[in-house]
């Protein structure tokens, strides 16, 4: 069993290679080229020590022309080796880059398809490091395998052949050493594995602490917790340090042990070969060749030890990437109807639970075409979740959500989502111009419309006062916007797509009540047919709504306002009394 697991480890060592095949389709023939070039490289490289031996033999026999022709041969085979080396290195790089490019693309494609709930269980820093660090780690291994491991393996194999041709006993000496080298490698891999895992954990923790500390600086300072935070961080860097030192002890021993093993074999050959030559009086040239072959091996073999680390990192990375690549928790974009007959929203007996907790229960509710429906209730009562069911960020656990009478599950996702605009409380501003942020997600590019929606959203004055107007760069690389400005841009962005249903999920909480009210009235004036669902705590907003429902503990607790029948309600002017604080 124990032996079996060691053998298994040797195979698991090259696991990332199997993973990579998928991302190299169409280019696998390059493997053959790389392998062929590596064979040619190995043979021509090994011919150099052979010709050195020949040269020494010629010199021994005072044969100048023989020595010179050996020298010419050396340059000649080296030139071929040079070309082959170029092929191996360049093509390996090429392949590894193709792999990285395809893998990264595939990861991103999967990521874009993931359900919203996927992102709630992963930290963004984690996802980011999978798509950068882990891709790099596995790419490095692919590269090292092609550019280092294959040539080194071939070097070992062909050395045996050449040594055998010089004198079988040289090959035998070397043959005894190879298992020892492999064994050393396996032990090394086994011993350092847990430490690398710890290092990755500590590294992750260090990043988390940094993130928290920087984003929470106001709290840290407000409470004068600077010293305490420093102590915490220093402790983390300390354990990180200790793991590294432990690894360096292992590395110091094993990585340097390998060349020593090779050198002992070379000494053996020198002694065996030398003393028999002294007896036979034959030429010393072949012995020089053999020893030179050994000297050549020292560096590539010591590199093998590093390759083991590469493999460790690559496998850990691939494991982490699998959660993205596995295809679970993804949305179906392809199937469904692409016509929606009306802009009313209907929840029938909708329940929703998350992590075993019931968030919404038995909600039956209808928002009529052209109506402004207010939703209010305690924080975490389930209002945002309710709104998120409409664009299918989540699917109800039971019951159904219908648009114009058709279940949202039967609709094509893009059709559904272009029919509605949902503005969340936290608006994402993308790095780019304000124009880009408003027109976002629209192929039709109309300046007039952009100005119009900015005006409705009560942000046009602010934008036009900026020196660069709509071309002002915002987001991380540009000017910083206040919470209220971001929210107003979010509303403008939503209006630009000319949705049939507008959902404002606490989307104007940082806008002052007066401006907020003006904005809502302007939206109403502009689009009488628009169905609007507003989630808010503000009484002034709720008073604006035609009808208000209160959600409490995941269910509708009160309904206020008149139901519009067949007749559309007057556009927002006829306001039903809002619910009080109850």
């Amino acid at each position: 069993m124990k032996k079996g697991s060691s053998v298994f480890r040797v195979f698991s060592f090259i696991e990332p290679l199997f993973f990579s095949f998928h991302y190299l389709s169409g280019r696998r023939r390059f493997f053959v080229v790389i392998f062929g070039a590596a064979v040619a490289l190995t043979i021509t490289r090994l011919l150099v020590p052979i010709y050195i031996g020949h040269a020494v033999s010629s010199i021994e026999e005072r044969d100048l022309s023989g020595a010179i022709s050996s020298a010419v041969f050396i340059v000649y085979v080296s030139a071929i080796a040079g070309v082959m080396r170029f092929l191996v290195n360049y093509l390996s790089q090429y392949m590894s880059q193709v792999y990285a490019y395809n893998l990264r693309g595939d990861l991103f494609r999967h990521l874009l398809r993931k359900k919203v709930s996927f992102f709630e269980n992963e930290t963004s820093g984690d996802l980011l490091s999978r798509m950068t660090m882990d891709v790099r780690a596995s790419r490095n291994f692919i590269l090292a395998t092609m550019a280092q491991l294959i040539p080194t393996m071939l070097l070992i194999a062909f050395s045996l052949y050449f040594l055998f041709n010089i004198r079988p006993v040289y090959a035998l000496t070397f043959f005894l050493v190879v298992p020892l080298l492999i064994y050393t490698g396996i032990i090394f891999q086994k011993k350092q594995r847990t430490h690398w895992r710890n290092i990755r954990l500590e590294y992750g923790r260090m990043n988390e602490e940094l993130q928290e500390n920087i984003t929470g600086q106001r709290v840290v300072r407000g409470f004068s917790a600077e010293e305490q935070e420093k102590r915490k961080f220093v402790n983390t860097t300390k354990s990180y340090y200790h793991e590294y030192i432990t690894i360096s002890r292992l590395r110091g021993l094993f990585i340097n042990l390998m060349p020593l093993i090779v050198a002992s074999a070379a000494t053996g050959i020198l002694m065996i070969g030398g003393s028999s030559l002294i007896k036979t009086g034959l030429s010393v040239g072949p012995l020089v060749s053999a020893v030179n072959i050994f000297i050549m091996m020292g560096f590539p073999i010591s590199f093998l030890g590093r390759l083991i680390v590469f493999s460790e990192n690559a496998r850990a990375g691939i494991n982490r990437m699998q959660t993205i690549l596995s295809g679970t928790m993804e949305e179906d974009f392809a199937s469904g109807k692409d016509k929606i007959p009306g802009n009313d929203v209907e929840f029938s007996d909708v329940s929703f639970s998350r992590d075993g907790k019931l968030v919404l229960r038995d909600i039956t509710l209808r928002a009529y075409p052209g109506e402004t429906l207010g939703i209010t209730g305690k924080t975490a009562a389930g209002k945002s979740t309710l709104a998120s069911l409409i664009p299918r960020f989540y699917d109800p656990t039971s019951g159904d959500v219908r648009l114009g009478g058709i279940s949202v599950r039967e609709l094509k996702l893009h059709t559904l989502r272009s029919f509605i605009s949902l503005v969340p409380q936290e608006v994402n501003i993308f790095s780019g111009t304000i124009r880009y942020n408003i027109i976002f997600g629209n192929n039709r590019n109309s300046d007039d419309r952009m100005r119009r929606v900015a005006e409705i959203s009560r942000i046009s004055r602010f934008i036009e006062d900026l020196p660069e107007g709509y071309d002002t760069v915002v987001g991380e690389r540009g000017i910083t916007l206040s919470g209220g400005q971001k929210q107003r841009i979010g509303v403008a962005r939503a209006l630009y797509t000319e949705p049939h249903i507008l959902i404002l999920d606490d989307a104007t909480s940082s806008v002052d009540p007066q401006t907020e009210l003006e904005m809502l009235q302007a939206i109403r004036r502009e689009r009488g047919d628009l169905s609007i669902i507003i989630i808010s705590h503000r009484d002034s907003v709720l008073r604006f709504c035609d009808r208000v429902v209160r959600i409490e503990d995941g269910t509708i607790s009160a309904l206020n306002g008149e139901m519009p029948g067949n007749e559309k309600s007057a556009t927002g002017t006829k306001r039903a009394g809002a619910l009080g604080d109850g």
Partner: protein
Amino acid sequence: MAETYEEAEEKIMKSGRSSKAFGRLIRMIIGQKRETLLLVTAVVISAISGTVYPLALGYAINGVVQRNAILLALYALLFILSYLIRFFFNRLRTITSTKLAQITVKKLRDDAFSTLQYTPMSFFSKVKTGYLISRISNDAENLSDFLTFQLPQVIGGITTVIISIAIMSYLDFSLTLYALIIIPVMVTFTISLQGKIRKNYLRTRKTIAAITGNLAENISSIRTIKSFGVEDRTYDDFDMLNRKNFSANIKASFLSSIYGSAVNIMESAGIAIVIVAGSMQLMSGLITVGLLVSFIVYVQEFFDPVLQLSQLYNSYQASVVGLVRIFGIIDSPTEASFSGLRVNPEIFEKLEFRNVYFSYGKEDVLKDINLTIRKGDKLAIVGHTGAGKTTLLNLFLRFYSPTGGTIMLNGTNIEKVSIKSWRSLISPVLQDPFLFDGTVLENIRFSRPEVDLDLINKLAREYGLDEIFDSLPNGLATRVGEMGRNLSEGQRQAISVMRAFIRESPFIVLDEPTSQIDPESETVIIRSLKKYLENRTLVLITHRFSMLPLADRIVVINNGMVEGAGGFHDLMERSPTFSELYSIHNAGKR
């Protein structure tokens, strides 16, 4: 795209010259005297032993040629001995270089972290979090690779070359010259190609940075992307960056592969030259076969260090850029007055704003503010969003300093008072109830880890917050999650209020603490605040009238100026902003 932002950041960080930064790094390393001494010894001895083995091999071969078994055995022994010495000292080198590198990297990280705790708050509005994290974790990591592997290897290699040349010259000067003939060719070749290689290499780094930036933005905006159905366009944008990175890498690896091959061919040419020149000398009886063999091995040993040296330059570039940035963070100016007068909480009398102005850059956000807060005052500051309320609070907490006028504490300029002791007087409840990953209890204890559980329970009951905490799945032991995302806004704000209460400081500062929460939670929080405020001084910032009963004096801020101050009825008459705010609020009342 990514470059412009980096440039902007570089301006803020005032990064220095790279040669200077490197010198500073070296001084930091040398500061570890014992480890440095060990490392230098290890590098030198292993380099010397690296020059012994070709010689031993040559003499052993001579032993064979001369049919002298003792000579052979002796030099074979020297041969393996040199490897054995090398093994021990390389091992020492690996360990000490890691140790030195890690000590240095740890120190850089700790120092950078420490600076971040004391930079002016404006620093964080200019530099994004991701940038700082990537400098402190990523760049420091690259540096550690450079210090652990490349640097000692190259120093060892160069030492080997120098000692080899010395030994060779001693053995046979003219043959040494032949052996070195190829070196100038190689140096010229290297210099002519390296410029291009470096440029390509820089491109690969910039393109990968662009990918990372794009990813970070898209991951955090995934809901928006889905809402607008722009997955395809988002993918295309990403693919363009990915493609750029691919082609930059291919170009860079083409050149470096060419370089690697060329160096190998030159190496063989060097060997061939030594063989030809050596055999001619051998014919004339000047040297022995063994010596020629030694020379051949020496020439082979030359080229590895040269190759490494050329690679070293790339990783030097990469890590020194990171190094300059880390030093940039470490050297960022910190708040000057962390030292200064201490405030005794007992003797706090009054805080005065005298003709205070403030601007974040161009325009004045606060203009000519005059304000006095006395011990026991309950002051509310109201105004529309964007009027300058939060800025006023920033000055109050000394996250920023006024750009004009002065703030006086008990008649002394507050700039002279140590920030730390000033802040220790204040319990802040900020608009965003930021929580740290951990349990509710850990967050409540944030500023005072020593406070015991019983007291927290007692205070929670006393202030009526216990209901909220009890409703959590595991009570106070509930984990709040990253940024507190396992909890609702109301629960988070309750923790943030409790965290402030635990501090038991004479001042409490509230910045719209209930703006994002529902009326029920708000009622609970207001009730608990009312209890807590007895005998304490309050500064409350709000645009909601629901909290005004907590205050006994109201200041109205409009467009960065004080529009009025006084009691409720007073302001209804005198301040248009106030009555406007009131009517909006009142519109909601039955």
